[in-house]
């Protein structure tokens, strides 16, 4: 029964090796989806390309559905996995800072790594910038961020429970909203690109 490593059913070396292979899969499909193209990534905010939205939501929904089934049928225990604890204030503010980073820099960390190693100089600069940012954050942690980072603590919060509905209903609602969004953005994209040529 999963997860295997947290229950010490596989050794640390095997775990790290598996991590490497899972990374290969992740990197392969990020690149294949076109996430190394910064113009495609920024397109989601300007309406000329919605690949980010499509890939992002279909990945999250696929994982949510499968993890639900695995957990429900006792194949793996989600409570033993990495479950991001909710600290809503720093997450919201951090998310907003990342929004600036995304629009100005044109990447997020995962995509910038993929793009950097496939030869995009701007992505290499972005990764460098991210490392500088983490350095800056680390050295100013005590002075600036410490209290903010730990504010708004809510513990492990499941959003379906928080909204007072069942997990299955939440996944269904999320998927229906996403499916509607997928159709809507296809139409938006057609309209936006009809008026003007966007080089990708």
């Amino acid at each position, binding site marked *: 029964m999963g*997860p295997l*490593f*947290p*229950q*010490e059913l596989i050794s640390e070396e095997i775990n790290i090796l598996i991590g490497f292979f899972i990374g290969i899969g992740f990197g392969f499909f990020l690149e294949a989806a076109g996430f190394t193209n910064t113009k495609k990534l920024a397109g989601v905010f300007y309406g000329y390309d919605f690949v980010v939205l499509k890939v992002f939501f*279909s990945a999250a*929904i*696929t994982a*949510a*559905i*499968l993890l*639900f*089934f695995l957990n*429900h049928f006792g194949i793996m225990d989600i*409570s*033993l*996995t*990495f*479950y*991001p604890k909710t600290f809503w204030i720093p997450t919201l503010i951090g998310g907003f800072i990342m929004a600036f980073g995304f629009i100005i820099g044109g990447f997020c960390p995962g995509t910038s790594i993929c793009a950097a190693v496939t030869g995009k100089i701007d992505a290499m600069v972005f990764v460098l910038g991210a490392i500088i940012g983490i350095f800056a954050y680390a050295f100013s942690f005590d002075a600036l961020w410490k209290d903010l980072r730990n504010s708004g603590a809510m513990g492990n919060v499941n959003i379906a429970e928080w909204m007072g509905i*069942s*997990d*299955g*209903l939440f*996944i*269904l609602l*999320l*998927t*229906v909203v*996403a*499916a509607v969004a*997928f*159709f809507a953005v*296809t139409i938006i994209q057609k309209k936006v690109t009809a008026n003007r040529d966007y080089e990708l």
Partner: protein
Amino acid sequence: MNKSSILLVVLLVIGAFGTFIIDTTQREPFDKVQPCDLIDIIAQTNKFVTTDELARKIMSDDPTLTIIDLRSKTEYDKYSLSGAINIPLENLSEEKYEDVLNQDVRTVIFYSNSSDLAVKAWMLTSRLTYKNIFILQGGLNRWVETILKPKPPKETALRTEFEMYSFRRAASSYFGGGSTVGETTIKKKVALPIKRKKKSAAGGGCD
């Protein structure tokens, strides 16, 4: 959207419908037990162990035996069966006892003064789908009646009853009953055999 995109999105929606349907129709095993099932469970007789069977098991030092005393700590300290572990009923669901109770190798026998606490505890554990859990029929009261102070059968009784009586007398002296009834017997106090798999939630992630 082209055909394959539509197909994939429909696939996701079908999967999500699946989670919704399973989540609303199939509840946890706890809620699934219907009253009529419960009657069946209660009516089963094979969940009981007679005092004679238990006495035999203790005397033969059965290594697979785990005896659980469900009474309070004070009652347990006053008198308990040899080798019994004290888990008061209200503490039964505590996590530290889970390894003792939830396994399928050992025979776990619940007892209390009569049968009632043990039956309650058994219902709880059976709903948790724990295996090999039994109840001492009649509890300690029956234990004292039959094992510690056995009554001779009538002279007209069957031979098997006489055999049982002689077994009980032997058991009685083994457990220090007979003339010394009520005195605490020398008993092995057993520590909880707690061996937990190391389970810890993974940290890390992108944090």
